């Protein structure tokens, strides 16, 4: 186990270095020049040179990359080009808000999706199964943007059940987060139920399940005790692979509901050409992905004793 962990950590370091190098090179090769973006129609040579020097963009590329690597190591990504804010604080604050937006519907969605998938699997082939498939496929076919626009208009504006937008700290956030949670649930539940239903139905046909039935176990007991534990690995994979995106928040929801999370920060930074923010978020996303992949492997071992990590 220790050897496995060390090996994976070594691989993770290589991946992070690769991501940092790629991010750095791609931003330098293809991203618009942030200095010219900031100066607009007054980008004369002297102002361009002065701002480039102020932002450290006149230094040799190797020196800039070394600085970027040291920022990653120290988790200190410097300051925003646009407003001079400390990026660690900016991203840290945004991450908590994004987690407040995404985690509750994620947990609720996981529980509801598994429960509904079990229910549908129980009624496999029947009208409930057919109706649910039609509903969920229909729901999946609708763009998330449509959910946001329609539910904000219908539930918040027309019916007045929720505030149209806004955010508050502490428990006051609940008031503003209910509708975004509902929308996230509506968007995620269709694909998850479809996936989990397929996984469960694969297990339903397995030999050990047939044996359990032959021993007289009820269908409900078969599903919960024999099918669900064996379907855990795909469910875990799907769940853990979604975790990094929870920190990144939801670009659309945060934008439409004026929620100051990472998603909104990314969109604003794109619009303003605030590349230190974008570089920091890209690298941190990669780090989160690597960390959660490692966690997935460890959970495999816990969920399935057949998996040997050594």
């Amino acid at each position, binding site marked *: 186990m220790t050897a496995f962990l060390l090996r994976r950590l070594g691989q993770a370091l290589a991946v992070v270095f690769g991501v940092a190098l790629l991010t750095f090179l791609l931003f330098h090769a293809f991203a618009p020049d942030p200095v010219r973006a900031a100066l607009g129609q007054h*980008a004369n040579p002297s102002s361009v040179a002065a701002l480039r020097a102020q932002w450290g963009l006149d230094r040799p590329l190797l020196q800039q990359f070394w600085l970027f690597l040291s920022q990653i190591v120290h988790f200190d990504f410097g300051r925003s080009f646009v*407003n001079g804010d400390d990026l660690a604080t900016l991203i840290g604050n945004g991450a908590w808000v994004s987690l407040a937006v995404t985690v509750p519907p994620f947990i609720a969605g996981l529980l509801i999706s598994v429960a509904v998938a079990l229910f549908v699997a129980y009624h496999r082939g029947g009208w409930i199964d057919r109706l649910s498939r039609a509903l969920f496929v229909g729901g999946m076919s609708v763009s998330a943007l449509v959910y946001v626009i329609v539910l*904000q208009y219908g539930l918040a*504006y027309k019916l007045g059940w929720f505030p*149209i937008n806004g*955010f508050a700290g502490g428990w006051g956030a609940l008031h503003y987060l209910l509708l975004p949670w509902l929308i996230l649930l509506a968007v995620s539940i269709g694909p998850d139920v479809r996936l989990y239903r397929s996984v469960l139905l694969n297990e339903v046909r397995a030999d050990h399940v047939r044996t359990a039935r032959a021993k007289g176990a009820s269908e409900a007991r078969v599903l919960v005790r024999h099918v669900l534990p064996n379907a855990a690995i795909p469910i875990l994979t799907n769940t853990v692979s979604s975790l990094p995106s929870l920190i990144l928040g939801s670009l659309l929801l945060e934008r439409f509901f004026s929620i100051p999370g990472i998603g909104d920060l990314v969109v*604003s930074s794109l619009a303003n050409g605030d590349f230190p923010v974008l570089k920091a978020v890209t690298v941190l996303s990669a780090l989160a992905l690597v960390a959660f992949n490692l966690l997935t492997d460890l959970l495999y071992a816990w969920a399935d004793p057949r998996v040997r990590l050594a």
Partner: protein
Amino acid sequence: MDRMRRCLLAGTAVWPIAAPVAHAQAPTKTLQVARGSQFKTLDPVLAFDDISSQLLLLAYSTLLCYSWLARPYRLQPDLLDRMPERSADGLTLSCTLRRGVMFPDDPCFPGGKGRELVVDDIFFSLRRFADARLNQRSWYLLEGLVQGLDEYRAATQLAKPGVDMSQQPVAGLVRHDSHRFALRLKIDTPLALYALANGATAVLPPEAVKHHGEGLATHPVGTGPFRLKDLDRKGVVRWTRNPLYHLRYPTEGAPGDEHAGHLADAGRRLPLVDVLEMPLIEESQPRLLKFLRGDLDIVGLDRAGTEKMVRREGGQLQLLPPHAQRHVLNQTASLAANYLWFNLKHPLLGKRKALRKAIAHLLNLPADIDTLLRGRGHHLASIVPPDIAGSERDTGDLPIAYDPARARQLLAESGFPDGRGLPELTLSSGWASTDWRDRFDFHRARFAAAGVRLKSQILDAPSFQKKLEASNFELAFYGWSADYPDAENFYQMLWSRHPAEGGNYAAFQNADYDRVYVASRFMANGSERYAHFRRMNAILRDEVTLVPLYSTVAVGLHQHWVRNVKRNAMVDGWQYVEIDTARRSKGLA
């Protein structure tokens, strides 16, 4: 002098006592307007984006400001007691500060008590504006204008960060006494005055810079109409009225203002509302929904909103029912102009004037404005937007007409009858929006009907600008936003001494144009100057350097309980807006 000071001090001393009594009886008037984007900083010298520049003018004042009601846009005194007096040679501007203008109480002052604004604050702010270590973005406003200021900037460039240069002498800043000073200019130009109305030259006390340092980005210490109460960059920015603010509502306006009710509050002390709340709402749907529910008092309309709520009748925009009964439509032409640029260095386009003319006649702008902008545009007849003195309203120029028959004739004259033999032309732009694609498709169809094939090249804005500056394009769609509301700011683009990076993207060289431009450059507005503008327009039209396309018209709505909304492209001017609390209490009709 002492008597006057005593009176002023007495007046200021009464304010904090009298104000709460008056306010105890009247309901608090809160104006709610959304911010469409995050602000970057409230430090005057560092602010460059529109939203920061507008927000900082709520907290700070400038020496001059733009009249709220006058059109074309006109300067008026703000911190100055009257407009600067020009010397006979035009090189000295004598200025007198308004007396009794107070900085608010702030920990940066001894004992936390605010003090009166004096000349030293003006000079400190101007030196800070010129400091090369701080200001890379708005220095162009005073570059080459004030004696000694360019040299001062050069010295700051060599100085180490943090070294105080505020005591370095600047020949052009002459102090007479605590309230009188002179600005010595290098050239006789009225254009220098515009810099004194720009938020970047807003006046702040040295104590604030010393005490707050970088904290000035979120902690303004100025003499503006409002004081910052709560600040959440990503949430609500809340301002309260500055009871010591020095300006009053204008007593005269443009023709029609009295009829429109814009003079109902003439002479009243500003600001008219007690609280200004500015939540950040970046998407247009929630902004509009909050407005329709009465949670916002004023809102801008985008194209989708205009399509749903506004119709064009007889060339006028009108609100559709039921909105017409509940809300009021407001609109104003922007101070930006969009053009189709020709690259005169291009081997084909540069040499064939008839081809450029043919292309100009293939642009159906009235239909473009009607169909794509839903009437939210003004077809330009000159390169100057309509609300600027010296525009087509003063020169009498008419737009280039859409005339496919004439275009065909010109194409034949240029050697490409019905477009035969004419290679496909590339139209470059820096907008990747659906609006731009719709616009390109709209015009491509009309060009194709005449045999001219167009292809689109979309780049990110900085790359596009680089392309323009390198004269590396064939046709380009690009605009210019007024730095100050004077026609010179537009005509200077095509001065041959300006390289492409200064705005002469066409690489236009014309001695006659240069001569007329130089003659008109620093002239006061009037018939003589407008005749020069007319001549320059004629040259540009004859040479077909660029085709003036349109200025967008900003359209918005306000609630029926809001007064004095006359959209002003230079300032937001929330201090002028009044709320009728009795009407508001009745809610939406």
